[in-house]
C-alpha cells in the first residue's frame, strides 16, 4: 500500500465488507451515547464555557474562578441552565470583571430573580458575541501555530515522539530542547500522577509533580514558547502534546488550543477504564473536548495501547481494533476529520513468546490499513520491559522496525529504562539514535516485503478483524455502557454509576444555554 506520505507498506488483503460493517456498528454504538451526551452537561463543560467567556484566572488560594462559580451554581442546582446563562445574568446585574462575575455567581440567592425577557435576550446575545470573539481570538492563535508549522516543516514520518516528565516545567523545557536537538519531532509532557482525578485545572508554572508535571495553562505556554524558539533554531517544527483526559477533558482542550498545542491525548474511554472516572461524565466531557480539538485543528490521540497493558496483548488484540472504530466514530461525531484522529495502538506482546514479530506486524499493518487517513500513533513495549536495559533497548528497537515497516505516522519511542523511571536525558538520546538507525537501515524494506497470502501475518490480521467485528456486534447489542460494565475493553469492568465525577454530571434544562456548544454545533 502506498501511503500519503510516499512510504510503501506491505499489502494486507482485507475483507471490505467486514470493515464497512465495523464502521456502521461503531456509528450505531456512538449514536446511542450521543443522545445521552446531548441531554447532559458537566461541571467541566460549564467551566470550559466560562473560560471562553473570560474567567481565566484563579482566585485567592489558587482556586480557579471557574470552579468557584460552577461549584456554587451546582450546589444551588442551577447548573442545568448552563453557567453561561448565569454569567449573562450576573453581567446584567452589573458584574463586569471576571472576579466580580465569579463573586456574584458564588453568592447567588436561593431563587435568583429572573431577568425580564427583553433584558435576558439582550444579555444572552452579548454573551454570544463574547463567545464568538473568544473563538475568533482562539482561531487567530491557532493560525499562528499552523503558520509556523508550515513555514518550518516537520520531520519525516514516523514523527518521533518522546516524553518529558521531570515534574519541573523548567527542567522539562531544558529536556524538551535537548530532545529536539537530538531529533525528536513531538514532545509530550506527562502529567503528574494525580492530576486526572482533580476536578479543576491547577494554575501557574509548577516545579513539583509526581511521575509527571502538572498540566497548567502557564506550563503549556512556557513549553510552547521554548519549542517555538527551538524549532526556529533547528529549522524543524517540534510539536507539543499533553493530555486532555481525566476530569477536565474539555477545559484542558480549551487551554491547550489557546496555548497552541499541536496534539492531545484524548480517548473516549480511557478515563473510565484506567482512571475509574464515571462513564457518563467522561462520555459527555470527551464530546466537547473533541469539538474544541476540531475547532482548533488539534490532532487527538487515542489510548487503545493501554488496553494491552491490563489485558493480554495477544488475546486482546481485537479489543484494540474494535475500540478504535468506536473512538473514531465518537471523534467524527464531534466534528474531527480522520486526519486529526490519531488512533493509538502498541507493540506489547510478551517477548517471552514465539513469533511475536509476525503478530505485531499483523496488528500494526491491520490498523494502518483499516484507517488509511488517520495519523496512526504507535506505542513501544512497556508492560514487559525489564530492568535489563540492554534487553529492553533491543526490545524497543524491534518495535522501531515494525513501526517503520508498517508505516506508522507517529511513533512514541520506547525507553530502555521504561521499567524503572521516567525517561532520563540519556535514555531519549539512545532511543532516538537507535530509531534513526532503524529508519536508515530498513529504508526500502516496506516495499521489498511481500507477505505470503496464506501466511501467519495475513491470517492473524484477518482473524483479529473478525473478532473485532464480533465484539462490536456484541457492544452494539448491549450498548456501550453495558459493554464497559462487562469488561469488554482492557479487562476492566466499570459500573454505570460508579467511578469518580458522577456528581459533576447534570441534566440539561430545557432552556440550557451554552454559546460554545452552539458555535461548535453550528460548524
Amino acid at each position: 500500500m502506498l501511503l500519503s506520505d510516499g512510504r510503501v507498506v506491505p499489502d494486507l488483503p482485507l475483507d471490505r465488507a467486514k470493515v464497512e460493517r465495523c464502521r456502521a456498528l461503531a456509528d450505531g454504538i456512538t449514536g446511542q451515547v450521543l443522545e445521552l451526551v446531548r441531554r447532559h452537561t458537566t461541571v467541566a463543560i460549564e467551566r470550559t464555557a466560562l473560560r471562553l467567556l473570560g474567567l481565566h484566572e484563579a482566585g485567592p488560594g489558587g482556586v480557579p474562578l471557574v470552579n468557584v462559580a460552577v461549584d456554587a451554581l451546582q450546589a444551588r442546582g442551577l447548573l442545568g441552565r448552563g453557567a453561561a446563562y448565569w454569567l449573562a445574568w450576573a453581567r446584567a446585574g452589573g458584574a463586569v470583571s471576571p472576579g466580580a462575575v465569579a463573586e456574584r455567581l458564588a453568592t447567588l440567592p436561593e431563587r435568583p430573580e429572573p431577568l425580564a425577557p427583553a433584558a435576558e435576550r439582550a444579555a444572552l446575545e452579548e454573551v454570544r458575541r463574547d463567545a464568538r470573539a473568544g473563538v475568533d481570538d482562539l482561531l487567530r492563535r491557532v493560525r499562528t501555530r499552523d503558520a509556523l508549522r508550515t513555514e518550518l516543516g516537520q520531520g519525516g514520518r514516523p514523527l518521533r515522539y518522546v516524553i518529558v516528565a521531570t515534574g519541573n516545567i523548567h527542567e522539562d523545557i531544558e529536556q524538551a530542547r535537548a530532545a529536539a536537538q537530538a531529533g525528536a519531532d513531538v514532545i509530550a509532557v506527562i502529567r503528574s500522577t494525580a492530576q486526572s482525578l482533580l476536578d479543576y485545572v491547577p494554575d501557574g508554572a509548577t516545579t513539583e509533580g509526581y511521575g509527571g508535571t502538572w498540566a497548567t495553562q502557564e506550563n503549556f505556554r512556557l513549553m510552547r514558547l521554548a519549542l517555538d524558539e527551538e524549532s526556529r533554531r533547528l529549522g524543524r517544527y517540534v510539536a507539543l502534546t499533553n493530555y486532555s483526559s481525566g476530569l477536565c477533558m474539555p477545559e484542558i482542550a480549551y487551554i491547550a488550543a489557546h496555548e497552541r498545542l499541536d496534539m492531545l491525548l484524548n480517548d473516549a474511554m480511557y478515563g473510565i477504564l484506567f482512571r475509574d472516572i464515571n462513564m457518563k461524565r467522561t462520555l459527555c466531557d470527551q464530546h466537547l473536548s473533541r469539538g474544541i480539538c476540531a475547532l482548533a485543528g488539534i490532532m487527538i490521540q487515542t489510548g487503545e495501547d493501554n488496553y494491552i497493558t491490563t489485558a493480554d496483548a495477544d488475546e486482546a488484540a481485537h479489543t484494540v481494533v474494535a475500540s478504535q472504530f468506536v473512538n473514531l466514530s465518537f471523534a467524527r461525531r464531534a466534528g474531527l476529520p480522520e486526519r486529526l484522529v490519531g488512533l493509538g495502538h502498541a507493540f506489547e506482546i510478551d517477548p517471552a513468546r514465539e513469533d511475536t514479530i509476525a503478530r505485531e506486524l499483523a496488528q500494526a499493518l491491520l490498523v494502518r490499513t483499516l484507517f488509511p487517513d488517520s495519523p496512526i500513533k504507535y506505542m513501544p513495549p512497556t508492560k514487559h520491559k525489564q530492568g535489563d536495559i540492554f534487553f529492553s533497548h533491543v526490545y524497543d528497537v524491534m518495535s522501531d522496525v515494525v513501526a517503520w515497516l508498517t508505516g506508522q505516522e507517529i511513533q512514541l519511542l520506547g525507553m530502555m529504562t521504561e521499567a524503572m523511571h521516567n525517561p532520563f536525558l540519556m535514555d531519549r538520546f539512545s532511543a532516538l539514535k537507535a530509531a534513526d538507525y532503524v529508519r536508515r537501515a530498513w529504508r526500502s524494506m516496506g516495499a521489498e516485503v511481500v507477505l505470503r497470502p496464506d501466511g501467519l501475518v495475513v491470517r492473524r490480521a484477518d482473524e483479529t478483524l473478525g473478532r473485532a467485528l464480533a465484539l462490536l456486534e456484541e457492544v452494539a447489542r448491549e450498548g456501550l455502557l453495558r459493554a464497559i460494565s462487562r469488561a469488554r475493553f482492557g479487562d476492566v469492568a466499570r459500573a454505570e454509576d460508579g467511578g469518580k465525577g458522577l456528581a459533576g454530571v447534570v441534566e440539561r434544562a430545557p432552556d440550557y444555554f451554552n454559546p460554545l456548544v452552539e458555535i461548535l454545533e453550528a460548524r
Partner: protein
Amino acid sequence: MTAHDWSPGEVVRPYGDRRDDGVVQLSFVLPVPPGERAREAAVELARRMGMDQVHVAHMEAAAERYTFFVVYARTAAGVEWDRIQVPEVTVRRRGFDELVAHALREVGRKIVVLGACTGSDAHAVGIGAILDPKGFAGDPGLERYPCFEVANLGAQVENARLARLAVERRADAVLVSQVVTQRDVHRDNARQLVVELERLGARAGLVLVLGGPRVDHRLAVELGFDAGFGAGTRPSDVANYLVLAVLRRLGKEVQ
C-alpha cells in the same frame, strides 16, 4: 582462582574477564559540550568514584550542551560476602493443597485479605497479579486459594478508606501495592496508611504487606509494614507468607 571454588568469606568483586579484575561499565551524561576537556572530566569523575584504568569508550553529544559517555573502568571496591546481612521473608514453602489444608485447619476459618493500590497510584496490574484468580506467570492468585477470602479494591484507593474497610471487614491482612515511586510518593503514601490504621487502633491486629517493583522487604519494614515483596513476586510466595504471619498473629507458631 575461578568462581567454581568460590567460597563465602572471600571479598566479592566485579568480574570482567578475570577473577577480581573489578571491571564495571558506566554511562552518564555531563551537562557540558563534548571535547577533550569533557572527556577528561569524565575520566576524573570515574576516578573520584574510586576507579582506575578508566577508559572512555564513547563520548557523543546527546544535545548541544550535553554529552553522553560510556566508560569502562576498574573499581578497587569489594564486599565481604559474610558481612552482608539481608532481612529476608523466609517461609517454609508449602504446595497449594498442603498450604490450604494447613491454613484451614490451623486458622479454622478463611483468612480475610484486602488488597489495593493506594493513593493516586493507578497501577492495578501488580496487585491484580497477586490477587486475581489468573495470578502471575502461571501461578494462581490468592482468590484461587479456598483458605483466603479476598477483596481486591483496585487502584487509586485512599488510605483512609482502605483503613476503614480493613476494620469493617475484620481483615486479617491488608496488601498494598505501590508502583509509582517518583519523589518517594510511595513512601509517604505507605506511611500514611500505617498512621490511619493506628488512628483506628487497627494496625496491631493486622498483617500489613507492601509490594511493588521498587519495593523490597527492608523498605517495607522501614515503613512500618510487616513484609515487602518486589518485582517478579509470585502469588504463592505471598500466600505462604500470609498463612504463616496470620498464624503468628493468632499466637499459633506452628510451621
